[in-house]
């Protein structure tokens, strides 16, 4: 096998691998994004329900804080997997900062929770749209596959160097 054939073979494998990986990754990210949005909706709906039932505010605050932490940790994982920030974890502070123990009316508290959660979800959907739909395909490809590309190039370099070395030693 000549060098050009070997190179073409490697490039072909690489292309098929990246294509397959891209398709799988994109569908996985879409699924994770939808699950995150559902979780934000579910937890905020729980909080609204508890406020309307007039459950003890201290307990609602504590439990809601725990639920927001779960969302934040999941968001960290998704951002890391996607390779960009669908949503900055710190933006969840707007939900954490709602005064559930204060003297505001139930309607105001419910409105604040709904408003902040809607902002977060819109931001997630917009970031997803920007990253996967509006961004230039090459830039998007680089962002999501840069580690694999760098790894493949390094491997190619090592294999090429090794083959050259063997060729040199054994003539």
């Amino acid at each position, binding site marked *: 096998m000549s060098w050009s054939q070997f190179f073409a073979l490697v490039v072909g494998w690489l292309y098929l691998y990246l294509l397959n990986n891209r398709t799988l990754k994109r569908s996985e990210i879409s699924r994770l994004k939808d699950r995150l949005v559902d979780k934000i909706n579910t937890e905020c709906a729980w909080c609204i329900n508890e406020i309307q039932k007039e459950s003890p505010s201290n307990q609602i605050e*504590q439990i809601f804080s725990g639920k927001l932490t779960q969302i934040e*940790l999941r968001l960290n994982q998704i951002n890391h997997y996607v390779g960009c920030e669908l949503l900055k*974890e*710190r933006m969840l*502070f707007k939900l954490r*900062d709602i005064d559930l*123990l204060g003297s505001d009316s139930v309607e105001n508290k419910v409105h604040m929770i709904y408003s902040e959660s809607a902002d977060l979800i819109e931001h997630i959907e917009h970031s997803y749209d920007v990253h996967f739909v509006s961004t230039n395909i090459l830039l998007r490809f680089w962002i999501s596959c840069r580690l694999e590309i760098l790894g493949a190039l390094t491997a190619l370099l090592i294999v090429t160097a090794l083959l050259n070395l063997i060729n040199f030693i054994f003539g």
Partner: protein
Amino acid sequence: MEYQGLIEMKTISVVKDFNTKPYGRYPRDGDGCGQFFRDNILAPALRTNDRVHVDLTGYNRYGRSFLDEAFGGLIRESGFSGEQIKSKLTYSHDLVKSIEDVIDERINAAIEDAS
């Protein structure tokens, strides 16, 4: 306690030095309330050290009321000024960064109320 040059810096771990499950604002909420943390640990540390760093790592469910009473209360109740707090106090949580932002917001709100 650490010494950075001639500056005395104290690091407080909430879960190790105070309570493993901080909760609530006032003593009626329990031993882990924000008022106890502020009055018994944080405010005295700020008075006797040049810098204080609060490490919130180890517990991930801090309520807004605990954070507001513990940190915002430094200005409202314990007599510290906004400038003192901004120059002497730092805080961090290794895992849940939005908690740091809530503390920022509570301190800023207390400064605004005080002015």
